């Protein structure tokens, strides 16, 4: 190994900038974007999984499922799948956080002169971008199999915004879990959490087809609120014919993620500080 003195020693005054959480968060998020380019298969299989679920439920079970209040099942299913994809993103957030901690990459970031918010911010930006891409792919897939939004651009935009708003809230839950519980068991624990929450919702079937108590739980699931609001805003059948949710789905889909964020954003900050204990 040949070494020239000038190259190991950094020139004086090399730093151009002071610490800035947004810039640093963006740089850390950029690492994920590079992963997509360098190892695209992870991303492709993630998207293929969502498309497979649509095809399975849309065509395999779809014929046997009737939507209360009438309407096409594919049109009912797709907005639900969008909401479910936002929920499933939680696993990726948590796994990525836990993996970086395990590999010492989080510690390396923490030993750099950067803002303490930038690690979580980087994860949040990268995962939000990932989910936006997944959503776009699902929407194109939906259009190909006959799903159609029937409302105006403003409603459609609000529907997309509410879906990403749910994802935004779940980011903090995922980062919190990834920082707090490490090791191989943690990912399994999140799967155990995510699947019942995903299926005890109105993603696949209307709550009005369920026994009373189950219908109540399902209706009030945050994923259901977002799914119902998205159906309404895209002009698709909602499967909700009566009750508070029939009138106020958009309100519920705005409030639930706010509650989740207000709880888990501070907890994420605390969990990050507790890395130092």
């Amino acid at each position: 190994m040949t070494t020239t003195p000038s190259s190991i020693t950094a020139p004086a005054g090399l730093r151009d900038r002071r610490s800035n959480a947004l810039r640093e968060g963006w740089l850390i998020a950029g690492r994920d974007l590079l992963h997509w380019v360098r190892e695209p298969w992870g991303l492709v299989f993630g998207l293929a999984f969502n498309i497979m679920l649509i095809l399975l439920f849309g065509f395999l079970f779809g014929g046997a499922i009737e939507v209360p209040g009438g309407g096409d099942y594919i049109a009912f299913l797709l907005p639900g799948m969008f909401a479910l994809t936002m929920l499933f993103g939680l696993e990726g957030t948590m796994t990525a956080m836990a993996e970086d901690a395990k590999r010492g990459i989080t510690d390396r970031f923490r030993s750099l002169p950067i803002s303490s918010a930038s690690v979580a911010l980087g994860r949040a930006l990268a995962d939000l971008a990932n989910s936006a891409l997944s959503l776009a792919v699902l929407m194109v897939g939906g259009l190909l199999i006959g799903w159609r939004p029937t409302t105006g651009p403003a409603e459609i935009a609000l529907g997309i915004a509410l879906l990403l708003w749910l994802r935004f809230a779940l980011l903090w839950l995922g980062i919190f879990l990834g920082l707090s519980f490490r090791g191989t068991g943690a990912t399994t624990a999140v799967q155990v959490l995510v699947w019942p929450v995903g299926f005890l919702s109105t993603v696949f079937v209307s709550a009005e087809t369920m026994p009373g108590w189950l219908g109540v739980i399902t209706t009030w699931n945050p994923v259901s609120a977002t799914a119902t609001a998205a159906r309404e805003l895209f002009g698709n059948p909602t499967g909700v014919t009566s009750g508070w949710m029939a009138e106020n789905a958009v309100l519920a889909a705005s409030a639930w993620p706010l509650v989740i964020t207000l709880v888990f954003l501070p907890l994420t900050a605390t969990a990050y500080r507790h890395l130092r204990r």
Partner: protein
Amino acid sequence: MSRPVPSHPALEAVGLRKRFGKSTALDGFDLRVAAGTVHGLLGPNGAGKTTAVRCLTTLTDLDEGTAAIDGIDVRRDPAAVRERIGLVGQFHAVDEALTARQNLMLFARLSGLSKPRARTRADQLLESFALTDAASRAVSGFSGGMRRRLDIASSLVLTPAILFLDEPTTGLDPRGRATVWQAVREVAALGTTVLLTTQLLDEADQLADRVSVMDHGRVIAEGTPTDLKRRLGGDRITGRFAVGDLDRAAAVVAAAVDSEASVDRDALSVTVEVVDGSAALAPIVRALDADGLLVEDLSLRRPTLDEVFLHLTGAPSPVEPIEPTGPTGPTGPTGPTEPAERRAEPALPAGPAGVADPAASDLEAR
């Protein structure tokens, strides 16, 4: 090297204490590292080396004590401390999926460099650490030694006042170890202060100007490698002879190095302890030759970490179980201790790197 010599040491730690639940990781840890030197922190697994490094690099909070890096208090101004340190932890904390250059660019830009400057700096570091040819390859295909060199390069984007290397060669093959040693020597030759932890006496001997021996969360001996070896009785030279020559050989060898020789009649060997084994070999060979004694086998051996601990604490090193060496109780100069507690590790929630299982990091490295 143009760094002005500062009036304060690069690192000064006094009375550091850290507990994880019921186990004490640091128990009155003191350390002083002069600027421009390489300091080895030597100790068995579980001695508290990693916790010490994590506390000094602001990753873990201290319970008690004061520590300053480059004159800046670790607890009072951790952000300023982070501007002055480089940390290479026990893991190869580089992104596997990215190329070497992409990794360096990321850390350079996070250190506050603009894109063009980061690119220049990355290229300089790639060249310094003999990684230019591999710059555009994914790190996942790198050997352990290459990863470690990239890891060290990533910590040197801004010249740190002190570079921490936590067991930099754990899990590397001899060739990887040699290239990392070379890299550390070159970093040190340019005036960067280095604190390196190791379980290997030989590594500390090879790289460090001074060595602190650590056990039970505190430093139990400190000095230059030569000092320490002198205190430990130094190297062992053993020669094997024909049975009738043993006593005469012992006298000749002892006279040649002005030391006492011990005779093992079962092994037909004569052993002397000397401070500098390689310097003593030639006089021994000459003396034996002059006396017409035929030596069947002559070997030079450095004291092992186990022997270091036997000398310093009167108790065997807890690194791994060793053969019982006689009635050595668990009570040594450091006070009564339960052997079972010697392996006490920091509690898990403190962070995975802090409690790295050496076997696991071995696997990671390959």
